């Protein structure tokens, strides 16, 4: 029973110990007896290490005792240790007790025997009257034994029974013997008992000798401590205990530079300073007050160990009474983890942001795509609308030239103006979408800013319906010739000027051009030099151009017009020398120019102000001024009309060219729009411009007048009053202009003009026409007087010349204008342009002056067209179409014939089949282009086409045609073998695909013919 109970107890103990094992090293159960079998080698090492680190533990032992005494945890811990010890001891006791039991059993047996014997003895003595009880003392014991364990050890009894049986044979003697024997047995038993007692004594002694519980406990504790050290020594862990005042009583793995006395008995705040210390202290206090364990992450930034983050676990230590008497605290350094975590968080955040951005971007892309598509569609639509609309407008134009009564005319005029507006709007939209979609390409061509300004002003003046003065100032430092996209620049200028005119009711509108040093200050000087060198070249050009119009020059010369005499002399001399002379001189001049030190291109920034004295722009409208479809206000739109796209286009174009547009304005006083653009200034020597260099040498001495013309920095177009619209001229101004050096210019104009008047059958009203034109061109009436005899002289001259020189002149002019407007060719002759302008002017003025003069218009718009086509049917169809379009055509059947035709006649346009027998259209075009560039038919000769010299005209003709470029429109059968690229590459300007339709033909003709 006892045994069972004990073993149960032991099991319970074991279980309890096992439950606790998590707190202890695993092999600490069974009361740590297995410490004994620790492998010595490792153990020693371990212990060594532990001893080294021993000092990292600082213990307030007094406190520990207190703790063990007072705190529940401490006492229970102690209790476990004690229980373990007790169990061990009990085990030993149990073993001893078992031994004792055995012994006592044996004793009982022997006692029993003794008793038997005694009984017998008694019996005998009773029988013999004896009353001896020698073992009376034992009686009670016996009774106890009998009572307790009598039934046991029967075997022994039996043996003894046997003995008894053996001994029964004898008498008293036998009994005596028997008694003796029993005595002996008793003695032996007593001896054994003695031994057992000794043994018991010994074992008790042993027991006593064994270690005291305290000793063993402390040993166990020591081992546990060692293990803890071993486990924790390298862990980034701080373990501590603080009392209820939060003073450290114990700390493990303290900061190495702190000594025991620095820590024990102090609080966190007393030890450390810096961020987080207070927080941890407060946290501990909180735990202390609440009595509930808690964890917290605290970032410290102390002077001692820098910035570190600890995860702190604090648990309250409760006394047996349930009061908190301190806290256990455990901190683990997790700085790296926190950093990683933060990094991760940041990354995640970034990813999220990225994703958000991405979706945003996708949205934007989507929207942009949509917008682009919409724009594209708008552009396409506009394009689709433009073609038929231009048909409507041009038909209306033609209609307006026919005979109509007043009402009809009014209606047609409304049609025209609305049509023009829509057309303009569509063009603007197309321009805008071109710029926006990046399709618009800029061309780099040489042009003369002065001319551009002048032309823009002239054009504006011609259509001017108000009493306004138009003027242009060009600073001297603006180069004569610059490189840029003249079309776009003109577009900007025209736009700004027409705006200015639209919003100006009285006063003036003007253009100012000057060089600004932005953005490189060095450029200006360069441009100066450049200008100087440009200068001479330009002079050469002028004189060359004079030659082109030499018949009229000659005429003038003979007439003795003073300023020009020298130049004309030179020209005449050249004329006599003929063409060969030119080429020689050409060579010479090129040589000269090679030595020119300034060859590389420079950039010059030119600022252009377009100012007016108009209604101005309210300040609040300026920011939206350059926005699309924006006008100053709804009133403005209603009053002045317009699309609201003009300025937006100007701005975009300027920006596209690398410049910008700005505006300054004062309401009711006027506005100034300024655009600043960079231009390249080309090197002087540009051998491709051979035409212009031809006679540079000859003309150096003679070109002062031309110089003025080119460099003239001021143009003015005075208002036309209604009365003076056709006739009045301001002689004073004319003189002034002459003084300003317009003399040569004027003469040129007269040169051009007779040509004009000759070619159009306007002879009857020449002077009137001339007048208006001259007015528009700002030529003084002094000139006008000369123009009359001039033209008559021309007549006589021409009458002496059977060929079509006069007409050629005109064609030159007309064609040149086409070049200017469409191909923007650099090689175009300046004076030709002058003439052109005048022709244009005269056409305009004839249009406006003789609004009923449809006849005149018709005769003027009769360009000469050559059709080169081998297919008779196509010829027939095309001719019919041309007739319906109002053009007559010359027809040739192959390339060779085409070249011959060009040698003999001037054409304004060539329609050229590509695939032809004998010579195809591509080659013919190449030959014609080559002639236009070189001025001779050498390449044609090489190709086997001999120039059939027509005596009256050839030299002069070649000379003239060398300066113009005939638009050649290819007629292609299919896009595969006769690709558009091929056409362009061979010098063709455009192409019409076969079968040719009226519409296609009309469109391409409209593009190239006035």
């Amino acid at each position, binding site marked *: 029973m006892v045994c069972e109970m004990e073993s149960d107890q032991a099991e319970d103990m074991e279980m309890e110990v096992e439950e606790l094992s998590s707190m202890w090293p695993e092999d600490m159960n069974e009361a740590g007896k297995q410490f004994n079998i620790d492998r010595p080698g490792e153990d020693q090492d371990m212990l060594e290490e532990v001893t080294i680190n021993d000092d990292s533990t600082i213990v307030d032992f007094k406190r520990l005792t207190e703790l063990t005494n007072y705190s529940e945890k401490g006492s229970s811990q102690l209790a476990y240790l004690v229980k373990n010890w007790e169990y061990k001891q009990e085990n030993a006791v149990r073993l001893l007790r078992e031994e004792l039991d055995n012994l006592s059993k044996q004793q009982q047996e022997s006692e029993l025997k003794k008793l038997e014997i005694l009984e017998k003895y008694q019996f005998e003595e009773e029988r013999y009257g004896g009353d001896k009880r020698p073992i009376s003392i034992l009686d009670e014991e016996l009774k106890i034994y009998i009572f307790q364990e009598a039934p046991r050890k029967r075997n022994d009894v039996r043996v003894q029974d046997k003995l008894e049986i053996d001994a029964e044979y004898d008498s008293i003697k036998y009994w005596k013997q028997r008694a003796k024997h029993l005595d002996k047995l008793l003695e032996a038993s007593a001896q054994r008992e003695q031994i057992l007692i000794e043994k018991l004594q010994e074992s008790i002694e042993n027991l006593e000798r064994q270690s005291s519980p305290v000793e063993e406990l402390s040993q166990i504790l020591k081992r546990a401590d060692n293990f803890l050290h071993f486990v924790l020594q390298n862990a980034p862990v701080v373990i501590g205990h603080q009392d209820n005042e939060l003073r450290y009583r114990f700390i493990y793995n303290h900061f190495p530079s702190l000594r025991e006395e620095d820590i024990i008995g102090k609080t966190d705040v007393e030890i450390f300073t810096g961020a987080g210390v207070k927080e941890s202290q407060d946290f501990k206090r909180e735990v202390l007050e609440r009595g509930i364990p808690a964890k917290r992450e605290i970032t410290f930034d102390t002077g001692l160990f820098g910035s570190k983050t600890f995860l702190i676990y604090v648990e309250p230590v409760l006394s047996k009474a349930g009061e908190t008497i301190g806290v256990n605290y455990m901190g683990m350094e997790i700085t790296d983890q926190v950093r990683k975590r933060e990094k991760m968080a940041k990354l995640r955040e970034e990813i999220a942001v990225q994703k958000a951005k991405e979706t945003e971007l996708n949205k934007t892309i989507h929207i942009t795509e949509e917008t682009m598509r919409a724009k594209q569609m708008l552009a396409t639509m506009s394009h689709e609308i433009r073609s038929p609309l231009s048909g409507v407008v041009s038909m209306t134009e033609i209609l307006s030239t026919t005979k109509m009564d007043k009402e009809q005319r009014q209606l047609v005029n409304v049609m025209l103006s609305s049509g023009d507006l829509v057309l303009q709007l569509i063009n603007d939209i197309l321009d805008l979408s071109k710029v926006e979609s990046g399709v618009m390409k800029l061309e780099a061509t040489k042009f003369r800013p002065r001319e551009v300004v002048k032309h823009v002003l002239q054009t504006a003046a011609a259509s001017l319906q108000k009493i306004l003065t138009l003027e242009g100032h060009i600073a001297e430092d603006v180069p004569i010739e610059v490189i840029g996209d003249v079309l776009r620049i003109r577009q900007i200028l025209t736009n700004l000027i027409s705006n200015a005119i639209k919003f100006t009711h009285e006063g003036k509108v003007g253009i100012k051009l000057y060089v600004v040093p932005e953005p490189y200050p060095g450029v200006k000087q360069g441009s100066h030099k450049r200008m100087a060198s440009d200068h001479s070249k330009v002079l050469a050009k002028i004189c060359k151009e004079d030659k082109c119009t030499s018949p009229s020059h000659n005429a003038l010369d003979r007439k003795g017009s003073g300023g020009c005499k020298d130049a004309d002399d030179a020209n005449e001399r050249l004329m006599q020398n003929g063409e060969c002379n030119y080429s020689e001189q050409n060579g010479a001049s090129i040589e000269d120019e090679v030595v020119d030190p300034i060859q590389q291109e420079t950039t010059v920034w030119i600022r252009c102000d377009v100012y007016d004295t108009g209604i101005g722009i309210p300040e609040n409208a300026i920011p939206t001024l350059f926005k699309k479809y924006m006008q100053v206000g709804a009133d403005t739109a209603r009053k002045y009309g317009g699309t609201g796209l003009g300025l937006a286009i100007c701005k975009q174009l300027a920006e596209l060219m690398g410049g910008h547009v700005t505006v300054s304005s004062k309401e009711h006083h006027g506005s100034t729009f300024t655009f600043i653009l960079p231009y390249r200034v080309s090197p002087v020597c540009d051998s491709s411009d051979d035409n212009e260099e031809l006679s540079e040498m000859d003309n150096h001495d003679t070109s002062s007048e031309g110089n003025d013309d080119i460099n003239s920095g001021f143009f003015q177009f005075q208002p036309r009053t209604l009365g003076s619209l056709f006739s009045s001229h301001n002689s004073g101004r004319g003189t002034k202009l002459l003084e300003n050096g317009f003399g040569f210019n004027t003469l040129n104009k007269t040169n051009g003009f007779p040509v004009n008047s000759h070619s159009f059958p306007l002879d009857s009203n020449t002077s009137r026409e001339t007048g208006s034109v001259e007015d528009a061109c700002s030529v003084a009436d002094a000139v006008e007087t000369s123009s009359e005899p001039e033209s008559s002289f021309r007549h006589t001259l021409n009458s002496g010349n059977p060929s079509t020189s006069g007409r050629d002149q005109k064609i030159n002019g007309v064609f040149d204008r086409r070049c200017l407007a469409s191909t923007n060719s650099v090689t175009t002759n300046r004076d030709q342009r002058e003439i052109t302008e005048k022709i244009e002017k005269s056409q305009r003025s004839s249009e406006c002056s003789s609004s009923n003069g449809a006849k005149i218009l018709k005769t003027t718009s009769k360009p000469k067209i050559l059709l080169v086509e*081998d*297919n*008779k*049917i*196509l010829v*027939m*169809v095309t001719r*019919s*179409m041309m*007739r*319906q379009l109002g053009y007559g055509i010359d027809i040739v059947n192959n390339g060779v014939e085409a070249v011959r035709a060009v040698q003999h006649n001037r054409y304004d346009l060539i329609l050229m089949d590509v*695939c032809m*027998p004998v010579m195809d259209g591509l080659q013919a075009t190449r030959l014609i282009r080559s002639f236009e560039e070189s001025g001779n038919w050498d390449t044609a000769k090489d190709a086997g086409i001999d120039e059939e010299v027509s005596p009256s005209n050839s030299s002069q003709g070649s000379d003239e045609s060398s300066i113009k470029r005939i638009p050649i429109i290819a007629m292609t*059968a299919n896009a595969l073998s006769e690709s558009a690229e091929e056409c362009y590459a061979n010098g063709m300007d455009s192409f019409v695909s*076969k*079968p*040719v*339709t*009226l519409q296609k033909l009309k469109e391409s003709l409209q593009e190239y013919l006035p």
Partner: protein
Amino acid sequence: MEVGQLQRSFVEYMASLFREGFLDAQFSQLQQLQDDSNPDFVVEVVSLFFEDSERLLNDLTMALDQPNVEFKQVDAHVHQLKGSSSSVGAQRVKNCCVPFRICCEEQNTEACLRCLQQIKQEYLLVKNKLQTLFELEQQIVASGGAIPMVQ
């Protein structure tokens, strides 16, 4: 026949020519070009087309009959024919020219002959049709009607 009926059948016939692809829009172009100043323009052009085509077809037959076919020459003829037919809007003839030229490029005499055969057929067909059309026109004119414009 009554003028109105003639006109109706003219319009119908015209429509069928377009529908069946004998003619294309270019023919309408020709009709548009015809006005009071040249009232027989279409007939003139088409007659020219007949002449030209017959000459070309003859040339082609000859050229392809040679032992050594000059394909360049053949190609030039076909090109001409293509230009002519496309100019009058004889669409099916024109359409035959494209494979013909490819055959020329491949220098395949047999294929060329096949093409020629086909082109001759198409030519004769369109010629018949056009002649019928012109006869109708003449009848209309003869009976004092105006040729209706077909869009």
